[in-house]
């Protein structure tokens, strides 16, 4: 116990640094994937067969293969196959590659949730809009979009909570997020070696963060209640 108290300041410092990286990846992914998901959703619902087939194929590939493999491909392929390591070896390059992988992956999952939300709106509303002389674009943005947002908050919340934990997969390309930071003390880092507790302690960070997320997303859901 005394030893843990001694190690505490160093370990907490390292875990905080790692968790900051985790959160950075979390927010960048949301910022990129939430809008990109809508684009992909519209693409897969497109009346043009080429566009819808193309986006559906991408969604199939991204959802059908492990995120860990996608991270490896996106980070290592440019150097291995093209002989031009576009990301570079440093921390910022690894973060960028991880961001691209996560945004693409989550956008595909979000797109299917969006699609469900959009197609779940009764067809009568389209017809009513047309009768009132609205264009399909006006019907989508003024009538359907907000109803869709309300319908998709619960499934999106699910994905958001999974996302926080999924960021730990980026350690496969040596992005130093919190799990990496916790594990480093097992092997030895900053004069502490063979310490098991930091790795397990990382779970507390995820728990607290997802607790905050539960409250925030619950509030969002409540604010959208005015449709009923």
């Amino acid at each position, binding site marked *: 116990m005394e030893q843990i108290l001694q190690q505490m300041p160093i370990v907490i410092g390292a875990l905080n640094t790692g968790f900051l990286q985790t959160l950075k990846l979390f927010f960048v992914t949301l910022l990129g994937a939430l809008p990109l998901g809508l684009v992909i959703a519209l693409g897969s619902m497109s009346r043009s067969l080429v566009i819808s087939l193309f986006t559906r194929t991408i969604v199939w590939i991204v959802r059908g293969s492990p995120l860990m493999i996608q991270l490896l491909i996106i980070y290592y392929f440019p150097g291995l196959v*093209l002989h031009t390591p576009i990301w570079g070896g440093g921390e910022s390059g690894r973060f960028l590659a991880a961001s691209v992988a996560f945004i693409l992956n989550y956008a595909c999952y979000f797109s299917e949730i969006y699609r469900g939300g959009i197609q779940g709106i009764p067809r009568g509303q389209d017809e009513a809009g047309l009768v009132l002389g609205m264009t399909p674009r006006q019907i989508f943005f003024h009538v359907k979009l907000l109803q869709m947002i309300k319908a998709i908050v619960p499934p999106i919340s699910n994905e958001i909570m999974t996302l926080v934990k999924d960021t730990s997969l980026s350690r496969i390309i040596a992005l130093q997020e919190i799990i990496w930071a916790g594990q480093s003390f097992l092997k030895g*880092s900053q004069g502490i070696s*063979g310490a098991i507790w930091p790795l397990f302690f990382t779970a507390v960070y995820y728990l607290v963060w997802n607790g905050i997320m539960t409250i925030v997303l619950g509030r969002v859901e409540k604010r959208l209640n005015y449709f009923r």
Partner: protein
Amino acid sequence: MKKLLSVLLAAAMLLTLTAAFAEDSDLAYVEGKGTLVVGITDFAPMDYKNEAGEWIGFDADMAKAFADSLGVKVEFVEIDWDNKVLELNGKTIDCVWNGMTLTDEVKAAMSCSNAYANNAQVVILPADKAAQYADVAALSGLTFAVEAGSAGEAEVKALSYATTAVSTQADSLMEVAAGTSDAAVIDALMAAAMVGEGTGYANLTYTFSLNSEEYGVGFRTGSDLTEALNAFFAGAYADGSMMGVAETYGVQAAIIPQA
């Protein structure tokens, strides 16, 4: 659709062509970009961070001196040890310089420098059980936690003892501490730092050495940096600077003479 297919095919062909013509001098490549990117893991006393957050250690200091001799900057990047060959071939790092044991697998996958230090694989046991085993033969029937792809795993497999593969050497210690495996096999240098009195694994102890082995530096296959490093090692050993660095980190007994 046909158009799309033909564009894709053309792109694929272009890729293979660039791949074929991309072979070039690695030394010129590193000098051209002005930085030697060194792939490491946090591994005292070879590569670790000082209080200022700067990478030091026997390997780190030698890497800095080598980069100086080439007239380029050095950049240390922490990698996942399992992916070291991927990192090298993907050019995200230029060398693996981190107390790497020269196994046959390593030699086949990379262009390796001359060996510069000695190491051994040692057996880790719970301290209260260590006395029950008189020699290595007495260990048969135990389950060994070993790092997947490590030199320790190869040694245990050679003895045909049961193994459980884990992802790092440190994880293998956790296995023994938690009682999920009977024993572990890790590097002697690491064992000295990680188990016994005053460490996180006070209840473990290290016992028999299974082999003796050597450390080397790995470059991309066919790289001309390997020759450059061998020449640098010979010079640094001759002028005493290599031993000087070794004494700073207490590894002078392990250093292999370079010529």
